[in-house]
């Protein structure tokens, strides 16, 4: 059983009971009635912060049986000492990786995980797919102005990667994938592909 205090991560844990608390006071109340094995404690909360909540819980004898892991955006070693002094057993930096959360639970609760093969497969596919999202397509190029496209075409036919870099810098932030896609082509010296696609975009 775990208690999540104000972590907005969707729970990926099944076969485990879980409760949520919105602030430190709630966390202490739930803890005293329910006695979870582990608490994920956000250190910055209204009403009673994580520091105070951890201190309160650990001041009780039965609190010693509960593992408290601090969730913190801070990466300062100083803060780490404060959390430990409050009674936290460990801490995890935000933004946290899913694996990190599972590893900590394995470490403190001795839990073992059974992975469903299909989930793993889906995950791997999505990981592999993400770089391919940076594909250079006509429709992606069409967001840029005609003048910009003509400059890019000229730069590509001249193999002028410096000029292309300058043009990439003009791509608005929201189309950063397009910028990455063009940069990838430049890194692989695929100037012909850039030229062909740009030409097609201009023609269409």
């Amino acid at each position: 059983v775990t208690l999540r205090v104000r972590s907005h991560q969707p729970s990926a844990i099944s076969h485990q009971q879980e409760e949520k608390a919105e602030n430190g006071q709630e966390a202490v109340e739930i803890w005293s009635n329910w006695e979870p094995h582990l608490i994920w404690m956000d250190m910055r909360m209204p009403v009673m912060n994580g520091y105070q909540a951890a201190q309160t819980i650990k001041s009780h004898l039965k609190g010693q049986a509960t593992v408290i892991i601090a969730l913190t955006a801070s990466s300062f070693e100083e803060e780490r000492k404060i959390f430990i002094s409050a009674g936290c057993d460990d801490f995890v930096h935000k933004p946290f990786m899913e694996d990190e959360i599972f590893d900590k639970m394995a470490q403190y609760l001795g839990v073992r995980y059974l992975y469903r093969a299909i989930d793993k497969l889906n995950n791997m596919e999505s990981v592999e797919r993400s770089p391919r999202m940076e594909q250079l397509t006509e429709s992606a190029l069409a967001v840029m102005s005609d003048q910009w496209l003509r400059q890019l075409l000229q730069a590509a036919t001249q193999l002028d990667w410096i000029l292309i870099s300058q043009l990439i810098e003009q791509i608005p932030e929201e189309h950063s994938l397009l910028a990455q896609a063009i940069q990838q082509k430049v890194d692989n010296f695929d100037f012909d592909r850039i030229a062909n696609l740009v030409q097609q975009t201009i023609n269409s």
Partner: protein
Amino acid sequence: MNSHQFNLSCGTILIVDDIPDNLRILSTALTENGYQVRCAKNAAMALMGARNASPDLILLDIKMPDVDGYEVCQRLKADPKTCDIPVIFLSAMDDVFDKVKAFAVGGVDYITKPFQVPEAIARVQHQIALQVAKAEIRALNTELEQRV
């Protein structure tokens, strides 16, 4: 016409090699020595690049799939737009490449791979110096003709 400054460490160089890592090694070395570098990894791109923005010198790999360096050189020499650009061939040391053919198709020199960067730079500088000297002579000739 401005008088040419005799600076050996400037000019644009087109490197043609089908292996991207070779392009990266040479372009880094040449860029560090003050040259502007462009890269092409096949014959089509090399010809396109040379025609659209004439470099001062071309480093051309001999062994490439589809169209090899000899043929690229012949096509460059057949095109009035690119015929005056000097070509230095790049060849693997263990490759029995035809040096005579390299000169016959219009090459001015060759560099063997794996590259010894100082040697490559020296050969490049030498050709750039010749180019600069030729340009000086042309400029002086024009000046003379105008005076006469």
